[in-house]
């Protein structure tokens, strides 16, 4: 097999590994900002939200301070939902590092863990392309939503398409809580690109 063919095989393999709605969410273990291991499958039986995160991305800042991410995780936590932020930024990229993420936690008043994925392996396994990029996993471990936090791509909630702001994640969580299928399971994420190393 020549080098080009090997590269193509590698590319197909990477795409095929992206998480799909309706399929089991890929398990992972990542360290939080205190160095403690957090394993996704440990939360089986609970609804989990994964939020791709970059504390210095202006879309993340806007959404956490003015837009649809403001206090959303806290509201979800009160209903028993586990919320995990994941930073897949590589060293040297915007928003990378424990201290910058601690500063983000403080600035946004986050009460949930931020997990570090410097290699980008988990981000790529989920097909995370943007910050913020949201994934909702049901108690059985099935991915039931992936996409944007809402339909307002300015991050502030001030540019909702059709004039009505829709928080897709809260809607998905409401559907799950009511025992319904998630009405809108897949949307296009917006925001900064995930600052992968390669």
């Amino acid at each position, binding site marked *: 097999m020549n080098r080009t063919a090997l590269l193509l095989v590698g590319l197909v393999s990477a795409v095929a590994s992206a998480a799909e709605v309706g399929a089991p969410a890929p398990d992972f273990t990542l360290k939080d900002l205190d160095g403690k291991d957090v394993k996704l499958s440990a939360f089986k039986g609970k609804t989990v939200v994964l939020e791709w995160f970059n504390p210095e991305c202006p*879309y993340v800042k806007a959404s956490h301070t003015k837009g649809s991410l403001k206090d959303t995780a806290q509201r979800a936590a009160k209903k028993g939902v586990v919320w995990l932020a994941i930073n897949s930024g590589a060293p040297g*990229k*915007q928003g990378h590092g424990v201290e910058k993420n601690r500063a983000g936690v403080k600035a946004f008043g986050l009460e949930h863990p931020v997990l570090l994925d410097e290699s980008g392996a988990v981000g790529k396994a989920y097909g995370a392309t943007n910050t913020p990029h949201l994934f909702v996993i049901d108690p059985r471990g099935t991915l039931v939503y992936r996409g944007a936090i809402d339909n307002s*791509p*300015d991050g502030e909630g001030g540019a909702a398409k059709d004039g009505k702001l829709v928080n897709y994640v809260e809607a998905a969580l409401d559907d799950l809580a009511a025992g319904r299928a998630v009405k809108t399971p897949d949307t296009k994420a917006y925001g900064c*690109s995930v*600052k992968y190393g390669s």
Partner: protein
Amino acid sequence: MLAALAASACTKDKPPEVPAPAVTAPAAAKDAAGTSREEKPEYVVELLAPEAAPAGAEVAATVHVVAGEGFHLNAEYPMAFTPDEVDGLVFKDKKIPLADAARKTPCKGEPKDACEARAKVPFTADKAAKLSGLVAFSICQPEKCLIEKVKLAVDVPVK
């Protein structure tokens, strides 16, 4: 300056070496008639006044954004111009989305990305007045993204 920047804005071959941006406090809009501009290493944004027209005639100002070297426009961001309320100027909407109307120029070597956008802002002028407002846009490079809100102002002449 703008033409030179536009010509070089889309090159992605070189790794971006952009100085740390001082973007949190947009500079005050220039007060010159005709064109109002803000230039930074990351972008150039301009508001161009229309030619003088009879009072009450529909005219259009132009918003022009050029990404700096290594940056491109974030196509997903709802680029918009929000005019200030000014006596004598009438806009159809309080906030004018520019993304759909904008003519976007692909980046050199990166046809999926746009490095330059130009859009019209139609309005009518009952009398000479100063058109001012906020241009909101987003630019990105592989290392970082920025959301910018720049205040610009131009004199609108009336015949």
